[in-house]
């Protein structure tokens, strides 16, 4: 122990590529990570407190601001929670529209992740391509909802806007294109021997880890845990069509990538089915909700990153007395304690990215040598560089 250097590698709180500021301290012996600590709250916006001061309809828009990527996940879970409190069901057309929006979001979120993962590994072509394909989904969002993000489509009792019939063929065409591209990406990932060597067996999570940390979504499904809220506790129109839950068994970063890409294909299937169901329909898109009676309600939604959970309580006034929000990353991020320990620092970038955490990592990375009080700073580019060097080394072996 004495002659081994034990270093603390702080990651955070700021990082330009990921979304929110967080802080991680990696405890290392040489290049190997032996422990990890997580600190959050650098950009805490007190949404739960703010929510207690807004009326029920305003909260839908407030929670949409929680995440800039999967912005529909929170309104979806919140509306489910309030509708659970009310005990109402929403019109069939609104159910399909909710599915379309949520699944389009899943495709663009997963493509964003695929691109970022490629970038971390030094596959910048993958990064460019994935983000280029994602762009067409954002354009579709603009066409349907008026916004590339923060679509404001949801309201308690249904949706706010209908999808116009003339938009449907355009959306179908884009989906058809995306299907080919995602298929190509999936095969590119599955067939690439370098990616397999680089990602297989890296950051493995077992079923036990998933249970202990309460991890959800693609992270859990990549470890062989068969859970998906869309199927298990069906809401919107998910029980009204045929689709399957994507699942793999190994729990490493490679499997997490595969699960996400396979999910995109299922999402396309769901959207296509939903479009067929609403085409030409002039049905209602919302049930009128006037008052929220006293009571409590729970709603959850399978967001791109996993289960998004909302609990609301009403005292009969026009504002919630309590609104608890749980985003999937809240239980996915602590799994780093299991997945990073025993790994090399060069792998940490991709393991941290592997769960697609909604946090902002770091602009720089400092290696602090506890033994001789020497401090060495690594820029984020150097961390990515270390990751890429490892990919290069593997490439040369092939």
């Amino acid at each position: 122990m004495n002659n081994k250097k034990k270093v603390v590698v702080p990651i955070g709180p700021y990082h330009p590529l990921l979304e929110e500021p967080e802080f991680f301290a990696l405890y290392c012996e040489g290049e190997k990570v032996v422990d990890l600590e997580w600190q959050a709250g650098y950009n805490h916006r007190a949404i739960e407190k703010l929510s207690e001061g807004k009326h029920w309809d305003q909260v839908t828009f407030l929670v949409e601001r929680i995440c800039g990527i999967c912005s529909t996940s929170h309104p979806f879970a919140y509306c489910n929670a309030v509708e659970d409190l009310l005990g109402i069901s929403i019109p069939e057309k609104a159910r399909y529209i909710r599915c379309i929006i949520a699944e389009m979001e899943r495709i663009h979120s997963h493509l964003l992740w695929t691109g970022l993962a490629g970038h971390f590994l030094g596959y910048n072509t993958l990064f460019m391509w994935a983000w280029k394909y994602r762009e067409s989904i954002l354009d579709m969002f603009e066409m349907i909802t008026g916004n590339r993000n923060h679509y404001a489509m949801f309201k308690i009792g249904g949706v706010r806007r209908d999808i116009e019939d003339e938009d449907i063929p355009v959306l179908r065409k884009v989906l058809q294109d995306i299907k080919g591209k995602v298929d190509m990406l999936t095969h590119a990932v599955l067939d690439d021997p370098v990616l397999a060597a680089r990602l297989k067996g890296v950051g493995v999570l077992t079923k036990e880890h998933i249970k202990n940390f309460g991890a959800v979504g693609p992270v859990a499904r990549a470890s062989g845990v068969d859970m998906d809220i869309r199927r298990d506790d069906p809401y919107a129109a998910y029980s009204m069509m045929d689709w399957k839950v994507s699942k793999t068994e190994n729990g490493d970063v490679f499997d997490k990538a595969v699960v996400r890409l396979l999910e995109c294909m299922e999402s396309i299937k769901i959207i296509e089915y939903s479009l067929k169901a609403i085409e030409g329909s002039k049905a209602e898109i919302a049930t009128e909700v006037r008052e929220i009676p006293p009571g409590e309600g729970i709603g959850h939604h399978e967001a791109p990153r996993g289960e998004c959970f909302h609990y609301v309580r009403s005292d009969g006034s026009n504002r919630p007395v309590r609104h608890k929000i749980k985003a999937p990353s809240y239980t996915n991020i602590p799994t780093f304690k299991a997945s990073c320990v025993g790994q090399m620092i060069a792998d940490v970038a991709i393991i941290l990215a592997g769960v697609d955490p909604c946090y902002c990592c770091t602009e720089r990375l400092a290696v602090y040598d506890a033994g001789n009080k020497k401090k060495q700073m690594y820029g984020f580019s150097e961390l990515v560089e270390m990751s890429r060097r490892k990919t290069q080394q593997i490439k040369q072996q092939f």
Partner: protein
Amino acid sequence: MTLFDTIKEQLGCMIKDTKLHNEKRIYITVDKQDIKECADIIFHRLDGRYIIASAIDNCGSFEILYHFGFDRYGAVVSLRVFLEREKPEISSLTDIIPGIVYIEREIWELFGISFTGHPGLKHFLLRDDWPEEKYPLRKNITTGGDICE
């Protein structure tokens, strides 16, 4: 046998009250001294999935809801515990559910509810020098941060 019946059978006389909002939303009230045993049964024996815990300030008392998912039934089971207003305290569940460590820290700093047996009850979301006795999610704190009665 429904999930509700199974839980009633397993928890037995530890159940103080139940509320079946619908067959997929089950709320069970237990005493705070029984919470560890109940959570152990739900999490280990019945294989419930830990989702999250949420605390609520009822002005006269505090309430904590521990939410567990039962995905094969598509249900959410919430264990409800009431705590007294003065010196609210409850056993930590960290030795049963390792992942609960962060939400307990969060409830501690935002509501001032103490968790006995927690391995590191320190600030998680708030800064380290956050003033004591100022718990942001209590009802006597305004959104501006002022204390009112």
